[in-house]
C-alpha cells in the first residue's frame, strides 16, 4: 500500500494541475478597456464592451472569444453626431443594439496571434481575421473596417464626407478568472 502512495500523489497532482491549467484560460474583461475608431471624419469610441474570453497561448485550439459592444455607448465627442450614429441609416441602435464578434479560430503569427471569427454589425455577418497581441494581460488589436460593408451609413448627400474606411483600435486588459 505504501508503494502506491507516491504514484497516487503524483497522479492527483497532475489531475488537479490539469484543472488549474483549464481555469487559467478564462479571462475577465477589466476596467480600462477601449474600442476606438479613427478616420478623417468621424472618430470616436464605444464605451461599453462585454464578453467572454478564453485564451491560452499554449492551447489555441481551445481559445474562444465572444465580444459584445453596446451601440448606444458610441461617443464621437459631438452630441449631434452621436444621435446621428444611432439613427436608422447608420447603426440603427433601436433595431440592432449590439455589435458582436464571435471567434471560430485562433492562430499564432510572426508578430503575435490572429483570430478569425464572425463580425455582426446590423444585419450583416461577415467573417474577419483580426491580428492581435497579448502582452501584460492585455489584448490589443488594430485593423481596418469598411462601414459600407456593414450597411453603416452610405456615401450619399451629407454622408459623402464621412470616411468609409475606419481604423479600429481595441485594447482589452483582462484579469484571470
Amino acid at each position, binding site marked *: 500500500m505504501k508503494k502506491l502512495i507516491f504514484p497516487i500523489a503524483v497522479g492527483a497532482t497532475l489531475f488537479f494541475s490539469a484543472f488549474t491549467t483549464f481555469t487559467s484560460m478564462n479571462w475577465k474583461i477589466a476596467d480600462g478597456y477601449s474600442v*476606438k475608431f479613427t478616420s478623417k471624419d468621424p*472618430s*470616436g*469610441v464605444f*464605451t461599453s464592451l462585454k464578453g467572454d474570453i478564453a485564451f491560452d497561448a499554449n492551447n489555441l485550439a481551445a481559445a474562444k472569444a465572444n465580444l459584445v459592444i453596446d451601440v448606444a455607448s458610441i*461617443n*464621437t*465627442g*459631438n*452630441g*449631434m*453626431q*452621436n*444621435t446621428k450614429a444611432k439613427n436608422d441609416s447608420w447603426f440603427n441602435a433601436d433595431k440592432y443594439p449590439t455589435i458582436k464578434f464571435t471567434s471560430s479560430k485562433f492562430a499564432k503569427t510572426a508578430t503575435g496571434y490572429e483570430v478569425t471569427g464572425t463580425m455582426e454589425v446590423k444585419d450583416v455577418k461577415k467573417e474577419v481575421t483580426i491580428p492581435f497581441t497579448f502582452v501584460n494581460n492585455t489584448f490589443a488589436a488594430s485593423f481596418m473596417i469598411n462601414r459600407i460593408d456593414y450597411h453603416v451609413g452610405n456615401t450619399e448627400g451629407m454622408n459623402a464626407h464621412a470616411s468609409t474606411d475606419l481604423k479600429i483600435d481595441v485594447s482589452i486588459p483582462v484579469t484571470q478568472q
Partner: protein
Amino acid sequence: MKKTFLHGIVSGIMAAVAAIIYSGIYQNAEGTDFHKLINIGSMTGASLFGCMLMAIGYYLLERFNKENLKGLFNIVIVVISFVSIINPIGMTLPLDIKNPEMFPGLVVPMHFMPALAFLCLVPFFKNKKA
C-alpha cells in the same frame, strides 16, 4: 473713456457671475461634468473679453461722434452672439468627456450673457450730453 471702460468691466463681471451660477445649476441638475473644458477662469475671461470688445466699440463710436450708429452696433453684437453658438454646437469634445450632447445646452446660453449684461447696463453708463 473711463465710463465706457467701467461699463465693459462691470458688465463683464455680471456676465461672468451669471455664467458661473448657470453652469453650477445646469451641471448639478443634469449630472454632467465639463470642468475640463469650462471653468470659472474661462467663463470669467470670456465674459470680460466679450464685454470689453463691446466697450471698445462704444468708445470708438463716441470718439468719432457716430453715436447714432449705436443701435446698428447693438444689432451687430446680438448677431455675432447668435452666430457664435455654431461653435459649441459643432465642437468635437475629447472622447473621455461623457454626454457631449449636453454641452451645447451649457454653453449656448452663456454666449448671450455678455451681450445681455452689456446692453442692459447701457442706461447706467450713458454719457451726459453737453
